[in-house]
């Protein structure tokens, strides 16, 4: 098993298998090993991205803006190793679970906002963040990343999972990804991409850094 280059994230043995884990309060009934809890890459696109060995640039204590926090599964793992973590989710039903996940994490801040409208939370989320993690299932995912560039430090990182089917069910995913990367190019330099298939079908993981100047 390769070392995970993120302090606070490591491989542990669960059921005889080496699996990703972080240290924190369990939130959704995941298996634990001492104070480590399993971070299931099959449920988490960021987890899968890390397992694939992409250089996410994430590190312990980072300030993170997480767009599309849903029920808080992945963002709870991020908050385990990161610093202040702003979790944006729009739908009220999963947000209930997000609240529960955030409850025991002092620096995980839930925001019921639309990630397409960063003006509605720019008065809360601080500037100069180290990472923008994005997993939103709306059309225009690349545009969302571009609009939220303003929260990132110049040496920060965008770690996004682009879901082809959210853009267009009928089109070939590769074509959808090409368009998305072109849009991202307005504000980011794409460093690395990888398809998350078969664990997350028709998803593209993207790591990018902001272009200098402001997005």
């Amino acid at each position, binding site marked *: 098993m390769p070392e995970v280059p993120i302090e606070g994230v490591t491989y542990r043995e669960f059921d005889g298998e080496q699996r990703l884990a972080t240290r924190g309060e369990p939130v959704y009934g995941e298996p634990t090993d001492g104070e480590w809890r399993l971070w299931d890459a099959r449920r988490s696109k960021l987890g899968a991205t890390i397992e694939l060995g992409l250089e996410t640039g994430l590190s312990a204590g980072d300030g993170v803006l997480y767009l599309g926090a849903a029920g808080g599964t992945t963002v709870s793992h991020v908050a385990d190793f990161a610093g202040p973590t702003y979790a944006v989710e729009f739908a009220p039903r999963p947000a209930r679970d997000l609240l529960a996940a955030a409850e025991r994490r002092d620096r995980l801040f839930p925001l019921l906002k639309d990630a397409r409208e960063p003006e509605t939370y720019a*008065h809360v989320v601080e500037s100069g963040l180290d990472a923008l993690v994005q997993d939103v299932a*709306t059309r225009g995912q690349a545009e969302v990343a571009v609009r939220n560039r303003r929260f990132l430090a110049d040496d920060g990182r965008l770690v996004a999972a682009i879901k082809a089917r959210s853009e267009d069910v009928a089109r070939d995913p590769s074509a959808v990804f090409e368009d998305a990367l072109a849009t991202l190019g307005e504000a980011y330099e794409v460093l690395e991409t990888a398809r998350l298939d078969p664990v997350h079908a028709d998803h593209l993981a993207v790591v990018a850094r902001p272009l200098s100047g402001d997005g």
Partner: protein
Amino acid sequence: MTDESDGPTGSPGWFAGLGPGDVDAAADRIREGGAERPADWPTLAVESGFADGREGYDEALKAATTAAARQVIEEREGADDRQLVHAVSAMDDLERVVNELGERLVEWATSRGTDADGPVETARAIAEDPTAGEGDTGGDSVAGKGEDPEAADPADDSDYPRATRDPEAADPAGERLHGLAERVLSLAEERDATRAFVERAAPAVAPNLAALAGPVLAARLIALAGDLESLAKMPAGTVQVLGAEDALFAHLRGDAPSPKHGVIYTHEYVRNTVRGERGSAARALAGKLAIAARVDHYSGDRRPELDRELEAMGNARIPGTGSGVRAMGNARIPGTGSGVMAMRAGPTGVTGTGGDADA
């Protein structure tokens, strides 16, 4: 103080002017406020004296964001599935009562020579007949000769002189007919208002299901299942026959063929499919609706790809049930990549004739 809590473009941070203990005010600010650009809010907050350090700031931010999130969740879930179930049941009860009383009204009005178009039209004509109200505008009574000028308020007789009206017109039966018409009319109005509520609430409760099924059918399915969670846990085959329980149990006793559809029959996709194919149309639709209900219950976010899949199956979507609007244009959307269902919907799908030629 305000200066120090301003961001680079002059918009203040969420904490501007507040104390660390003002959780409610801070929650309001988080919900309603905004800024064009972010700033180093933690530092600004400490400089402005809002917090005495990053830890204190985080603590205040945590309390405020949690309170704000809780409020938004509660508000948006105000239209919860239980309320929707009650509303759609009330809507159906109102419909039934309006029809029953309306029929009686029409029968009664006809006996007095009124030309009746339909129950509600008749009720409106009688109830709003100006000759029956207080103002004698001389308008033609649609309800005809049976109308009594004093019918609107029996008490009028005692304390209101009506020298200008014909005393011969006193007509107790007309008064009652008028009273009945008013009740039917207000029940019909309540039914419409309840339907409007259902149409607003269903997309909030179950966005995907409401988009696929139409808000009223979505609400009925939730009501038949009991709540959204129960519906989400049902296999598609059960969703398919929800509302056809009598037929289903008759079938299980061995007396009858299996029902092909329950309330989902009201969906254009089933109703406008020729008879011989309705069973498979119902099965396909039920599959999509079951998935939509699960997404709505377990995730809650909108998945436009679900409707596109249904469109690809040859769906004619309509805003409500039983509206009679035929979305003919949608009926033959080329089934890009949708496989079997598109093939089936092509030749046999929505034609708008409702004919049984193939049967």
